[in-house]
Each structure stands twice: as structure tokens, then as C-alpha cells.
């Protein structure tokens, strides 16, 4: 099993990828660090596990889909 890390919008463009697979992580913050070569997590970024909002300390398990994205601007 692996963990899928997704990026959207301006963050996707900055990272240069829409999806990265990592082999393990204990928290969302750790998943960010693994996927982004230990770059600091930008403060305004939103996070989700399996399409539900979470904070950076939320626990991650194998098979999870994690997403990072900027403030939303729909509607």
C-alpha cells in the first residue's frame, strides 16, 4: 500500500506535480515533508484526508488520499 498526495491550483503549479505517491507517513504534516523534500508547509494551505478537511496533525494510514490546496475561490 502507498499514500497518495495530491496538490491543486496554484500549489499544484508551484510543486510542478498534481500527485505524488509516498510509502508511509504518520501525520499529514509528515506526508507533506516527504512529498515536498522537507519544504516548510505554507501556513495558509488547506489539507484533507480522503476528501475531508483535517489539520496538519491528523493521523494518516496506508491507502489514504491526502490533498493540499490553497484557500478555495469557487462560487
Amino acid at each position: 500500500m502507498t499514500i497518495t498526495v495530491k496538490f491543486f491550483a496554484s500549489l499544484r503549479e508551484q510543486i510542478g506535480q498534481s500527485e505524488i505517491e509516498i510509502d508511509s507517513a504518520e501525520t499529514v504534516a509528515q506526508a507533506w515533508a516527504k512529498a515536498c523534500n522537507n519544504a516548510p508547509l505554507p501556513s495558509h494551505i488547506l489539507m484533507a484526508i480522503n476528501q475531508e478537511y483535517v489539520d496538519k496533525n491528523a493521523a494518516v494510514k496506508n491507502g489514504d488520499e491526502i490533498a493540499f490546496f490553497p484557500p478555495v475561490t469557487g462560487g
Partner: protein
Amino acid sequence: MSIEITSKEFNPWNSLQAYEKNLVALHGKSGAVATFVGTMRDYNDGDSVQAMFLEHYPGMTEKYLQKISDTALKRWDILDTFIIHRVGEILPGETIVLVAVWAGHRAPAFEACRFLIEELKFQAPFWKRETLSNDNGVRWVEKNTN
């Protein structure tokens, strides 16, 4: 209740007419419909805008719109909700979003409609990228206004 994400242009009044045709159970029960339609403007933040691209998080978007619709149906005495949101390439004058709420009375219809559009704007995973006029480039909208 219905939630739709579409990459095709839609006329909100056509969509409402088609949707209401299937609301036969509400005939005579619904006394109030409050709707909100968001349309693309040709300006934003002092700049002229030529086109827009709406990105979303497929799956999470639907889940989130479902969740706020459920919340509205629990919190207010309303009968039904309907949301359509556009994604992909959009031009000025085209509809971005439609929110409609049916109720017995007007106060819950208005309140739930306002709730849905505010929640959608501040929480549903959509992002706007604007193409400015006169070759002034492309930019991501950084945040929604009140």
C-alpha cells in the same frame, strides 16, 4: 436534493424549470423558492478579465456540496435544495453557480440559500484562475470576498 458539477455552459433558469418539473411531490407544499445565481464578470479587483478557468477537486467537491445540503435540510424547515457548479473554461456573462432552496415559507428559504452559497464559497474545493485582458497574463484568485 441534487448536486451537479458541469463543464458545460448552462442557463440557470432552464435548469430550474427542468428540475422543478420533477418536484411533483412539492406541488402545493412549496410556498417559497429562494435562488442565487453567480455569473462571471468581465472585471475583478480593478482589472479587466477575459476568461477564467475553474479547477476543482473531483470527489471532494461533490462530497462537500452534499454535506452542506444535508446540513441545510436539517437546520432549516425547507423542502429541497439544488446546486449546479460550473468547472473548466468560462467566459464573462456565463453562469458559475446556481443555488436554489424550496420551502413552505420564505424566511427559511432565504436563510438556507444564503448559507449554502457562503459555505460553498468559503469551503468547497474550487479555484479560479483568471486570464486578464490585453495580454496581462494569468493569475489565481487568492481569496473570495464577502
